[in-house]
């Protein structure tokens, strides 16, 4: 099947977002779910979080950070081009209950994944506090959209070019230390950030979810490549997740599995570059 790119917006040198025509997926998707895409016949299958949908148009929005060969190639596409395969919506949707006060922590491209969840939690009746971070102001994405669905939004950048100078998890710690009554935290971003967020909430025992993005092949429970140990039990992120209890995830094991193909990825990217014209 082929899926048309309806729109492409460049956000920064390494990030962009796409609107892709996929009517069935748009109709069924819920916050927290993802798709697996493949660009061409020799391409790999990679998971991308569904950030938004347009039911009237039958489209989904995908936010992408260039991190390897496939995301770079996707970045070179423009509106009117096609994606060879888009399968989904995959994964278990985020449980959008009314917890009371919910804090949505997003780091880097993870802000894109946290946005539909923040929106859903707001619609479910929560008081939503958004904490979003990036390395610098230019890489801060979806700020206005987040402001629109959060009762309060705080920003952190590594270089201090916007908001708090430092990590977004420091904002979370400050919030807890200030005595804010927090009932639920969900953190999505790079693995060290999610681990740090879980560590920050652990002493106070606040229910904390993280959304994992391990290496996947099929995305439907067939390969088990995305398995992760949660509370000593092996879970498949693609079907049992991607959201899990942040206090129970074996982040070390996951981080090692994420690095399993680093040497190969370099080889793939280099060979791509060295293809003679």
């Amino acid at each position, binding site marked *: *099947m082929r899926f048309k790119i309806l729109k492409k917006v460049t956000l920064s040198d390494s990030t962009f977002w796409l609107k892709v025509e996929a009517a069935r*997926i748009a109709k069924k998707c819920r916050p927290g779910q993802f798709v697996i895409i493949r660009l061409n016949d*020799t391409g790999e299958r990679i998971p991308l979080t569904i950030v938004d949908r347009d039911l009237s148009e039958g489209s989904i929005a995908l936010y992408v950070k260039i991190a390897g060969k496939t995301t770079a190639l996707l970045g070179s596409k423009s509106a009117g081009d096609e994606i060879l395969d888009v399968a989904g919506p995959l994964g278990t949707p985020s449980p959008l209950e009314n917890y009371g006060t919910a804090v949505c922590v997003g780091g880097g491209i993870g802000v894109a994944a946290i946005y539909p969840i923040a929106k859903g939690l707001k619609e479910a009746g929560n008081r939503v506090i958004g904490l979003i971070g990036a390395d610098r102001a230019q890489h801060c994405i979806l700020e206005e959209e987040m402001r629109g669905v959060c009762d309060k939004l705080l920003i952190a950048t590594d270089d201090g070019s916007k908001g708090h100078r430092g990590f977004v998890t420091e904002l979370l710690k400050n919030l807890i230390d200030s005595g804010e009554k927090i009932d639920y935290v969900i953190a999505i971003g790079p693995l060290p950030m999610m681990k740090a967020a879980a560590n920050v909430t652990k002493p106070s025992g606040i229910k904390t979810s993280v959304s994992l993005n391990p290496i996947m*092949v099929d995305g439907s*429970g067939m390969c088990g490549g995305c398995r992760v140990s949660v509370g000593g039990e092996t879970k498949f992120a693609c079907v049992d997740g991607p959201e899990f209890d942040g206090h129970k995830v074996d982040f070390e094991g996951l981080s090692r*599995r994420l690095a399993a193909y680093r040497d190969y990825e370099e*080889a*793939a990217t280099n060979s*791509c570059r060295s293809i003679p014209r």
Partner: protein
Amino acid sequence: MKTKRQSEIKKTKTPIPRQRMAEQDPKTRIKNFEEVPFGFTEEEAKLEAARCLQCKNPRCVEGCPVQVPIPKFLNLISKGLFLEAAREIRAQNVLPAICGRVCPQEDQCEKLCLLGNRFKPVSIGYLERFAADYERKSGQILISGNNHPLGKKVAVIGSGPASLAAAGDLVRWGYEVTVFEALHEPGGVLTYGIPEFRLPKAIVKAEVEFLQRLGVNFQMDTVVGRTISIEELFQEEGFSAIFIGTGAGLPRFLGIPGENLVGVYSANEYLTRANLMKAYKFPEYDTPVIRGRVVATLGGGNVSIDSARTALRLGAEKSLLLYRRSRDEMPARTDEIEHAEAEGVEFHFLTSPVEILGDSKGRARALRCQKMTLGEPDESGRRRPVPDKESEFDIEADVVIVAIGNDPNKLIPSTTLGLSSQNKGGIVVDPKTGRTSRKNVYAGGDAVTGAATVILAMGAGRKAAEAIHQELSRESKILFP
């Protein structure tokens, strides 16, 4: 009865020996992914087919789950009527080129061949393969499309052997058939699981194209249960009946320490990377697979053998296969065990891992194993392995492939109201018809039984197709008396 059989055998005074298929030399073939046997020549096929005794009550047919008229097609081959032979097979078996290669003939048709009592049985599998290949290469596959479309839509979920068989029958009877596949290529386990060197993907493609020419519509990238539900297929897409042939795709793990180390794969992942994603052509293809120096595969079935042989072709210095019982209990096809042995796969029988040991970077480096002894037979009829706890020893391995079986994926039962399934995920059906607990929903193959064989799945697909046809014909009569 016995004397009659013996008299039939005596007819062959100077028996022709069972013909062997020429194959790639083991030293050459472990360096490529091309198919191992070359197939019979026309002369070899005629000679081999002429060995058939043409029994009046052919027991081989009883041994075939889809009742291929074996003596009939063997007789046609012996006369050089190869296309006629292929058509005779195809009437009962829509995937002959595939079954000729992957069926466990030694446990089915060939097991019951009378010649086997004194000599070696007729090579029914090799001849089925020969006829189907001849037909495909001739470009003269007979398309008996239906001229009377019934105006009813049937959805087939999954595109493995059960689904392809069901789709083949339904389309010929005049149904508008749509096959929904979750992955980007059709074929199910035939595509993602069975390696190129055992089942060339061009053959799977040809069988799928054959169905497409009959009118079957294939929709890839559609994860039924996620992209669209069973309910929606009925209510919104207007399907009158649904066949679920989603196979057994959920890999089992051992549950031992170290199973999440880097370098530990389910056979599903290892084979999917290698076959579907073409990791053996990395970096021409994007998907990598860790190419271990010493690869240890756990399990004694076909999937295990496929993995161990794939590892050799991916450049492993050593490919070990660990099985907790002995060679006699291995469920793998005899041909494949012999191929693996010739290629240098090292078999470690009565050996069971208790832990996978890692290095400081979290990568697998060795297996801690226990020796087993065989006790009394268990419910499968095979002798139960009993661990000798005093016998722990380590085997070095940097890639470990867990090939101890698969359970059905629970996605469809868990998203379909009123569809009964067992604890392990198998959909509950009436074995005669494939009918599930939900009206007009049928299921068959590994999705019902758990991992079994291609031919059993096909048989189940055909039975369900027939039941669907009966049910929908009955409904038509009620609506339009």
